[in-house]
Every structure is written in structure tokens, then in C-alpha cells.
């Protein structure tokens, strides 16, 4: 579980996060949604320590991350996996080396054990046999899956995903969502997903934080969204006529 209280962050005169508080629950897909510039990415970067918040507290499983020493943070980070928007795979390494990198760095296992673990996670993300391919030789969807495999290879307790569906077709997006969701449940991880994708919101949103102008605007689950009367949230989620119709149908179904 990750709890954050009253997080504030400014860049120069511009206040990007203005007192955001929320609890991200373990074993659930916790989504941070909002329009561009609402502070989602900055919030996620504050949570993983890439940015230092100006004010507020971040608590990982009851331990204050904000007050941790750099050494303790390094240890905690070994329990954090992150899938980046552009996958952030190391160009000079092939798929196997990319996934094995955290194992090489932090474990004393021999190569056979590490390769076995790499093959396990590759199988988990449906990429068996892609070991020797380089990032430049695989598709965007495959890169995302390799990114997920690298993020989970050390069995992390916390998984962060920054826009996991960006640049992917709807079908691949759904596969990635399902994969993240299944992994979250399977390993009881605290997964925090930063997304714009409405399919993700409706399909896997267990615990949603909707942000607007650096503040928490609304929280709830994907089921709650259908019945929410928050105007800003409705405008953001059901932006098109098609989605508004879909909402009406869902509401009618729910009332039956």
C-alpha cells in the first residue's frame, strides 16, 4: 500500500501539485487519470522519488519514503518496478540482457538460474523465444511487454506504469491492460497506472484518482464513474457522443 498526504510540487512560479492526498491499495489497479497538464506524471515521479515534493509525505507500507535516507531509498527501489511510457529499454542490450540486468545487478545467482527466471517472465508476458532480439527489432507492443517483464523480474511489491497504452492499437492496449491487471492480482502488487486511455479506466480501474489542475478532483472505481455526477469527470471520460451513448447504455443495464 502507498499512501500520500498533501503532496505539493512547484516548478518556478507554477504549482503543479497542490495538496494531493490518496491511498493506493495493494492487489488493485490504482489509476491516476486527468487531462494533460493535470499533474499525473509529476505525481508519479514524486512517488518513485524522481522528483522531490516541496511538501507532504509519501508512505510505503507504513514507512515514510519522504524521510528515508538515500541508501534506504535505494533498497526500497529494489522492490519497485516501473514501466515507462517509451519502455526505456537499454538499446545496447538484447531482450534477455535487458530483463536480466536487475538480476545481474542485485542477485548473486549464477547465469543458469538467472536465464531460467528471464524465461519465466518472458513466458508470463507471452514473449517466449524473443530473448536475442534487440529493442530496435521489436514492435511497440512487444517493447511494452519486455518493459513489464523487466519491471517484474525481481518480484517487486510496487509496480508503476506510465501511460502503458500510449502509441498502441486498441487490441494491443487491451492485452497490455489485461497483463498488468493479471500480474497485479497474481502477485498482490500495488500497481499505479498513469493513463489517458478510457478503455483502461473502464476495464481495470479498481481505484481511480482523477486529477484536475494539480488537485484531487474525484476518486472511485470504474463502476462509480458511470453514476458520477462530477461534471468535470464526465466531460473528461465521456468526451465524445459515442462514449456518452455508451454511458447511457451502461446505466440502463445497471438499473435493470
Amino acid at each position, binding site marked *: 500500500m502507498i499512501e500520500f498526504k498533501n503532496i505539493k510540487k512547484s516548478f518556478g512560479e507554477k504549482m503543479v501539485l497542490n495538496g494531493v492526498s490518496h491511498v493506493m491499495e495493494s492487489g488493485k489497479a490504482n489509476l491516476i487519470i486527468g487531462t494533460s497538464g493535470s499533474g499525473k506524471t509529476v505525481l508519479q515521479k514524486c512517488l518513485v522519488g524522481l522528483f522531490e515534493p516541496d511538501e507532504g509525505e509519501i508512505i510505503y507500507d507504513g514507512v515514510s519514503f519522504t524521510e528515508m535516507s538515500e541508501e534506504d531509498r*535505494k533498497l526500497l*527501489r529494489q522492490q519497485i518496478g516501473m514501466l*515507462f511510457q517509451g519502455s526505456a529499454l537499454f538499446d545496447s542490450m538484447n531482450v534477455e540482457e535487458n530483463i536480466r540486468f536487475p538480476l545481474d545487478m542485485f542477485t548473486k545467482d549464477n547465469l543458469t538460474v538467472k536465464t531460467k527466471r528471464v524465461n519465466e517472465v518472458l513466458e508470463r508476458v507471452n514473449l517466449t523465444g524473443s530473448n536475442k532480439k534487440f529493442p530496435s527489432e521489436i514492435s511497440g507492443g512487444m517493447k511494452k511487454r519486455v518493459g513489464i517483464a523487466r519491471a517484474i523480474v525481481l518480484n517487486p511489491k510496487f509496480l508503476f506504469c506510465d501511460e502503458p497504452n500510449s502509441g498502441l492499437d486498441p487490441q494491443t492496449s487491451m492485452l497490455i491492460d489485461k497483463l498488468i491487471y493479471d500480474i497485479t492480482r497474481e502477485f498482490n502488487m500495488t500497481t499505479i497506472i498513469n493513463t489517458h486511455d478510457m478503455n483502461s479506466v473502464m476495464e481495470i480501474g479498481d481505484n481511480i484518482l482523477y486529477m484536475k489542475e494539480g488537485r484531487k478532483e474525484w476518486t472511485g472505481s470504474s463502476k462509480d464513474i458511470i453514476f458520477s455526477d462530477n461534471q468535470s469527470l464526465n466531460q473528461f471520460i465521456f468526451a465524445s457522443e459515442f462514449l456518452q451513448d455508451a454511458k447511457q447504455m451502461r446505466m440502463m443495464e445497471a438499473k435493470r
Partner: protein
Amino acid sequence: MKFLAHFGKYMLMLKGMLSKPENPKLYWKEFMHQCSEIGIGSLGIVSIISVFMGAVSTLQTAYQISNPLISKVIIAQIVRDTVILEFSPTLVCIVLAGVVGSKIASELGNMRVSEQIDALEIMGINSKTYLILPKILAAITTIPLLVILSMVLGIVGGRLTGTLAGIISAETFDSGLMENFVPYNVTFALMKAYTFSFIISSVPAYYGYHVKGGSLEIGRNSTTSVVVSCITILLADYVLAAILL
């Protein structure tokens, strides 16, 4: 003020990379990889410019010494001293600032922009120690060796040109090389080579590591890093000569 801000950030970067490696084996592997990239990767260009540098300095020295009263051994001495004192350490390092420096800056810049550096940090790895320290150590290890090779090839190039062009016989050139040789000159050249190799690796690493934006900024920072490295090398060259000679 801008200079001071950059200098402060540069010093913090150097301080930040001095931490205990998470896994010394992987750092060693990265160090050896960088030695190969920087050292062996620059072997060709260093060899070519060194041979031509020696050849041209022989031709130009001979052209300027037209007085028949001046012994031809002077040509060999001038070629030897200019190659050892200035051409090999300074000129080669300025070329390497372009070749190696732009590579380091663009590699790190690309890693920054594509979030690979953030990925390392999230994994709990000190990205400065893992990415920058091996590059600086590899440069300090291999560039002085390249400078020594350049000295040898420069003199060989000068000797070859002198004999092939009929300016000076091989025996006269060889005896000129041995006369009035000051071993301290080689020590001084190596001191310069160590200083310059630190500049060549750390300045572009600073510019690459701190890239903000996209591919345009990578190119811009890469160019800036080469310019700043060259100017710093020339300044250091002057300071070292003033202090140590």
C-alpha cells in the same frame, strides 16, 4: 552566474558518481567496454592524424631551415619536441574531444531523453556511478596510451617523410632524435594527457547527462560539450605549460 551554476552542477555530478558500486563485476564489465569504445575505437583516427602530423612537421621544418649552415639533425629534434610536447598530447586530445566527447554526450543525452537513466534510478542504481565513472576511468586509462602511440607514430611519420622526400637521411634523423633529448618532456606530455582525458570524458558526460528536451537538445548539447571541452583543453594546456615548464 551561468558559468558558476554550470560549474556547481558539474562538481555535484562528480561528487555524485563517487559511491559504492552495487555490483563491482558489472561496473568492471562496463569499464572494459568503455576502454574498448574509447581506446580501440579511436585507434584508427589517432594513427592517421599522428603519421600525417609528423610528416607535415618534417616538411615544414625543412622548408623553414633553408640555411646550409644549420645542421639537418635540427629537423629531427624540432619534429621530436613539437610532437612530444604539443602535437600528440594537445592536438590528438582536441580531435578526441570531438570524436569521443560527442559520442559520450549523445549517448548519455539519448539515455536521458528516452528515460533509460530514470529506469536505472528506479531500479536503485546510482546512474552517475554506473554510466559516468567507467567512462572517465576508461578515458584516463586509454587516452594517455593513445598519446604515447601518437608520439611514436608522429616521429615515425616524420622520419619516413624526411627520408622518402630526400630531405634528411635516416641515420641523420636518428642521431638527431637522440641528441639533447629531455625525458621530462615525455612526463610533461603525459601529465597533459591525463588532464585532458579527464576533461574529454567528464565535460561531455555533464552535458549529456543533463540534457532536457528531445533530439534537438541532444545535438545542441553534444556540440556545446565539444566546444567547451576544446576551450578547457586549451586553457589547461596554457596553465600546465606555465606551471610545469
